[in-house]
């Protein structure tokens, strides 16, 4: 599907521009909102995990990567897919289980991927993507390329064995990898303090002699700066970095979660740090846009996402023979 490729690549380039990045954050927000609605309305079975509130991480990471860098994210991956360039229709189509989806409707919400934009199959087993991303980095190192492998995972994932094993090896072999923990303060319904013996995931870098950093994940520019630095470090052959993004998911863990476990006021405090608002204000302050222009942009994006839902809904489900393809070579 080379049309898809061209479109994705064009979308990726849009991130070079501050307004393009802002627009992408808005697109992620609106797409996730619609996805929640689709599930809520019973139109889709299964489960989904949206990332409202974490858009700055997705867009910030994608903005400093090349398409030949490889990203291994999780089931909470719609934002990353969109940020890396995947068109909304490919995300929505996959979630709806349609041919037009990024993997033809065979994967579903938890398994977006597209090789062209450097998005690995998103793995739905906690921690599984961390060593895989390290392996991708190893491949780049072996080839003498300066591409990097990027692993995105949650705070909860920092408690699982694969995290530990992968970070030790990555540090030991000085792999060109960037490990990005999106610390959104919860793993499912459990707050960080109930599952994790430290408050800052970044301190775990010490256990591997790995450089690490805490970043304000609501601030697009902070994200770009930190990831850009880590990527540069990796490309230069200096080894991996662990970055902890302090962030928050505005919605529940998955489709059915109303997030009643949150302490009062917590969501509100974080809503006050909405990454889209922060970036919008910055653009306005810098004279790069007016409030009206941003509102118009939002309306435009909304139209696009609605069209994407229509296009996705119009796409047929994959035919039965598809089920038998790509099992083995």
């Amino acid at each position, binding site marked *: 599907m080379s049309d898809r490729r061209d479109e994705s690549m064009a979308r990726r380039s849009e991130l070079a521009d501050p307004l393009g990045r802002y627009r992408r954050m808005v697109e992620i927000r609106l797409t996730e909102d619609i996805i929640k609605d689709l599930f809520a309305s019973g139109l*889709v*079975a*299964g*489960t989904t995990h949206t990332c409202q509130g974490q858009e700055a991480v997705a867009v910030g990471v994608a903005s400093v990567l090349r398409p030949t860098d490889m990203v291994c994210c999780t089931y909470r991956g719609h934002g990353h897919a969109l940020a890396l360039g995947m068109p909304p229709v490919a995300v929505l189509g996959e979630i709806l*289980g*349609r041919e037009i989806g990024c993997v033809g*409707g*065979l*994967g*579903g*919400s*938890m*398994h977006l991927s597209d090789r062209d934009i450097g998005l690995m199959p998103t*793995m*739905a*087993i*906690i*921690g599984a993507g961390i060593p895989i991303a390290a392996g991708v980095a190893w491949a780049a190192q072996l080839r003498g390329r300066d591409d990097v492998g990027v692993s995105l995972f949650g705070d*909860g*994932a920092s*408690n*699982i*064995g*694969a995290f530990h094993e992968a970070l030790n090896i990555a540090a030991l072999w000085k792999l060109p990898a960037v490990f990005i923990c999106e610390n959104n303060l919860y*793993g*499912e*319904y*459990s707050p960080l303090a*109930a*599952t*994790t013996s430290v408050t800052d995931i970044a301190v775990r870098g010490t256990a591997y002699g790995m450089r690490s950093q805490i970043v304000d994940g609501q601030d697009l520019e902070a994200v770009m700066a930190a990831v850009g630095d880590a990527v540069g470090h990796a490309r230069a052959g200096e080894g991996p970095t662990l970055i902890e993004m302090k962030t928050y998911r505005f919605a529940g863990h998955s489709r059915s979660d109303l997030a009643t*476990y949150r302490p009062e006021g917590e969501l509100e405090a974080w809503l006050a740090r909405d990454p889209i608002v922060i970036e919008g204000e910055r653009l306005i302050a810098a004279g790069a846009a007016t409030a009206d222009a941003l509102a118009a942009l939002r309306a435009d994006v909304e139209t696009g996402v609605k069209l994407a839902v229509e296009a996705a809904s119009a796409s047929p*489900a*994959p035919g*039965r*023979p*598809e*089920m*038998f393809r790509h*099992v083995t070579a």
Partner: protein
Amino acid sequence: MPKWRMNQAITAAIGDEMAADDRVLLLGEDVGAAGGVFKTSDGLLERFGPDRVRDTPIAEMGFLGLAVGAATCGFRPIVEIMFAEFAGVALDQLATEAAKLRYLSRGAFTAPLVLRMSVGPGLGFGAQHSQTLETWFTNTPGMKVVSPSGADSAYGLLRAAVRDNDPVVILEPRNLYGEREEVDVEAVARHRIGEARVVRTGGDLTLVALGQTVATARAVAEAASVDVEVIDLGTIYPWDVATVTASVRKTGRLATVEANPYQGGWGADIIAELHRTSFADLRGPAVRFTCPDVPTPYARPLEEAYVPAPADVAERIEQWVSTGEVPAPWWQEVLA
């Protein structure tokens, strides 16, 4: 008799065992404050407190290992691993540690723990959250593996599992958590580990089912013009050779219906063993109705086609009984 959803029955069974025996513990991700992602422990934290109902980090190897340790000290932990696939990060503690402790210590250390996991396709969870994975657990002496077919057996088997003195794996069909069934809490002894149950009698064919396929088999029996005897295997390791053998002696025909891929699936063990015990009784080859040998597809129509469909199985059984010809798996037509 209460008509419970299966997750309510599970909650009740855990609650009843915890009330009866203060050595019983419950641990797993979000089993406490949230009452379990499938609501299989709703209210238990409030009832038994955080010492006995324990939320864990995402660390299946770690908390299963903790349960093994606590079990050797006399506790009876019930461990929840949300999806059976996650056993892929923890299998060592079950199969290589817990199951061998008794043997390696000549009985001095034992691991009377229960490992509950949800299994099965059908809910749109995709390739990594839809398998049944029995065969990861069914060639390891030292442990037991059961799978309930509804609220009643979920209640009964879970209570039996907690009281069992060995590690017991419970594979809970995820698509049944919300299904209601009458639960006879008095007659809990009907569900014994190692015992299959004839849940529908019939004279023409023995259809062995497990977990979520018991409903499939019942539906097949309703739909088919031949007289199908349905056996709910209940325990898959060690399974009840005697009950299946007795049934086949009567019917002379054997089939299994499974929610897993064909090659290497659990039904093969049933058929191979019956081949030995009941060769003379079998009027023709036994047949397995399973999923095809592919990962679970996501798109709804594909996933629906993936699992054995009652109407399709019924039709093939009828043809088989009338013509004597062994039905080929449906996907051979698609692939041809």
